């Protein structure tokens, strides 16, 4: 028993993580969510379902992903040993596919011929388009017009995979607006459509099931750590947008009190400038968006704020409700890394280890750079390298003044 054991028993039956989470949706969505909850709860502990999921993760995704000791980088930083959980090596290039494989299996069992998704960086959209292609499902992906501009490669990738990418022109034209549009689609087409949400946000049961499907990351990392380091790590670091890669890594360690966990949000131009996407580390007020209560960046009138980050995948004003609770109870420390630090970390890992990270996990790397030198060489940090950087090459090239 650990003082954090209670955390493993959440959410409660109505999807609450303490004061957070829940199901704050229009009645028009209630039926679809109840239906999904029923389907998932009946399969959650079903050995056949789990076996099918595990098989897909092994043979289609390529799991387990390695835990790689970044020896050269660790030496250069002159402190703790840094280990990278290589989610970038997954099929489609990010942790997102763990969840889409799981939800696609749910879609298949529900017999619905069409899936929809929202996407920011495009990684979740690509992962959804991929599983849809494999299962022969129609796929439409909602993406903010601004994100379509900065993630052109992923947009084309989704189209090659046979998905229809729908540009969202409303609101701030980023991830949150894409999610609004996907929810609107879902209430309209609920009879034949399964909505594959890409992070641990949204109404119950999404935060629960997305966490479950990503927890394979932490389970593997725990075993690999025992095998390769000979003990549990001292510190885990992951970036936090909605929070799915972070929860996936953290959840299986939640009772291990000796393991310090750090979630790194998008600091944008810096928390003090207000131009960021870091509701937890900036102590944003509580609020309700996309069906759950959480920390939410909003103005004094309660309108949701526009956010800023170099990374489209973290550009979201809220955060998964389980993270909100973990902040309050002190299980996880939440910090922010700003755009400039993130770019430095992106370049550094690429140069020193020959691994080009996505800009999202480059936030986690930026924080590893800060704390590793303050730790001893016999201490160990695992960083969730949640995705690879191919999709961000054009963004970085533009910063470097290159135009293709």
């Amino acid at each position, binding site marked *: 028993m650990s003082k954090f054991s209670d955390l493993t028993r959440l959410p409660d039956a109505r999807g609450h993580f303490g004061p957070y989470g829940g199901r704050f949706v229009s009645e028009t969505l209630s*039926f679809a969510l109840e239906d999904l909850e029923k389907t998932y709860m009946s399969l959650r502990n079903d050995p056949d379902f789990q076996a099918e999921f595990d098989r897909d993760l092994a043979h289609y995704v390529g799991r387990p992903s390695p835990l790689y000791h970044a020896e050269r980088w660790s030496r250069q930083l002159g402190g703790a040993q840094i280990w990278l959980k290589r989610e970038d090596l997954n099929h489609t290039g990010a942790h997102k596919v763990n969840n889409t494989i799981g939800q696609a299996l749910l879609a298949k069992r529900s017999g619905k011929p069409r899936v929809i998704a929202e996407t920011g960086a495009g990684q979740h959209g690509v992962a959804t388009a991929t599983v849809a292609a494999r299962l022969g499902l129609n796929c439409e992906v909602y993406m903010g017009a601004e994100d379509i501009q900065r993630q052109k490669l992923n947009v084309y990738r989704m189209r090659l995979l046979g998905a229809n990418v729908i540009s969202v022109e409303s*609101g701030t034209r980023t991830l949150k607006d894409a999610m609004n549009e996907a929810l609107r689609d879902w209430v309209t087409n*609920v009879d034949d459509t399964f909505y594959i949400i890409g992070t641990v946000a949204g109404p119950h049961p999404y935060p629960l099931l997305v966490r479950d499907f990503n927890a394979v990351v932490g389970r593997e990392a725990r075993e690999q750590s025992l095998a390769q380091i000979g003990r549990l790590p001292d510190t885990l670091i992951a970036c936090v947008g909605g929070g799915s890669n972070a929860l996936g890594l953290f959840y299986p360690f939640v009772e291990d009190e000796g393991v310090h966990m750090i979630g790194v949000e998008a600091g944008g131009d810096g928390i003090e400038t207000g131009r960021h996407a870091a509701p937890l580390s900036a102590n944003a007020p509580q609020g309700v968006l996309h069906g759950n209560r959480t920390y939410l960046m909003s103005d004094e009138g309660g309108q949701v704020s526009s956010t800023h980050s170099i990374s489209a995948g973290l550009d979201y004003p809220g955060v998964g409700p389980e993270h909100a609770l973990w902040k309050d109870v002190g299980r996880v420390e939440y910090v922010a890394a700003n755009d400039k630090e993130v770019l430095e970390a992106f370049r550094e890992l690429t140069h020193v280890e020959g691994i080009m990270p996505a800009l999202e996990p480059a936030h986690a790397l930026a924080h590893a750079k800060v704390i590793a030198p303050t730790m001893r060489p016999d201490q160990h940090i695992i960083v969730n390298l949640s995705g690879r950087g191919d999709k961000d090459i054009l963004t970085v090239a533009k910063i470097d003044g290159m135009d293709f």
Partner: protein
Amino acid sequence: MKGAGMNRIDQRFATLKDQRRTALIPYITAGDPGPAHTVGFMHALVEAGADVVELGMPFSDPMADGPVIQKACERALKHDVRLTHILAMVEEFRRNDDETPVVLMGYLNPMERMGLQAFAEQAAASGVDGVLVVDMPPEEADEIAPLFKEHHLHSIFLVAPTTSKERAAIICAHGEGYLYYVSLKGVTGAANLDVASIEHQLDSLRQLTSIPLCVGFGIRDGDTAAAVGQVADGVIVGSALVSRIAENCDRPERASDELKALMSEMRQALDA
């Protein structure tokens, strides 16, 4: 402020029942196209036959709304219209109309940001009669419902075609004033209506509650109003009115005339 007596919504539906008339309930977004126009529009709607006025509280992320009302929210938010401004509009409306019930409709976050206690208090003081919080089903209403009750504000809830029997029972147990039956799957502003299926659903709701059943989504003119009016206690019209405002953003006089014309058409169709 209203007296200790009945809520204006209950009074209005009691009168309508005596007269065997169907309620006509327009929706407009507060502050669209600018805050100066809303009170005038409200009076115009009443003049042309509205029995209850629903006033939308604009939100940056109106998840359950179609493009017409999304754009109305964007127009209003350009003027930074806040709940305190909206309550001031209701107060101003009340100076010339102490009878017509006013229902606020919107999303939870702005209310929470204002403070639920303050919102309930000030809404009641401004002359609001009911509140429909779109993204707050009864299961999540533990905090807000008692506050509304304390301030004699009716909690109005949605029922959808997909709502299960068990949920409908819960909603009916919590609902006050009237139930807002969403006539079709989708967001506000969607099209096709199926009156036979609406009638069937309303019949089963009548087994669960005695409060009036009003139908919204998809009602856009005299014909659709009359068709639904045959089976419902009230018809709610939103996007059709808001589009008239959208088309006449820089001609508010004309917008007001068009609102009145559509309302009169529907009133006549309902009363025929």
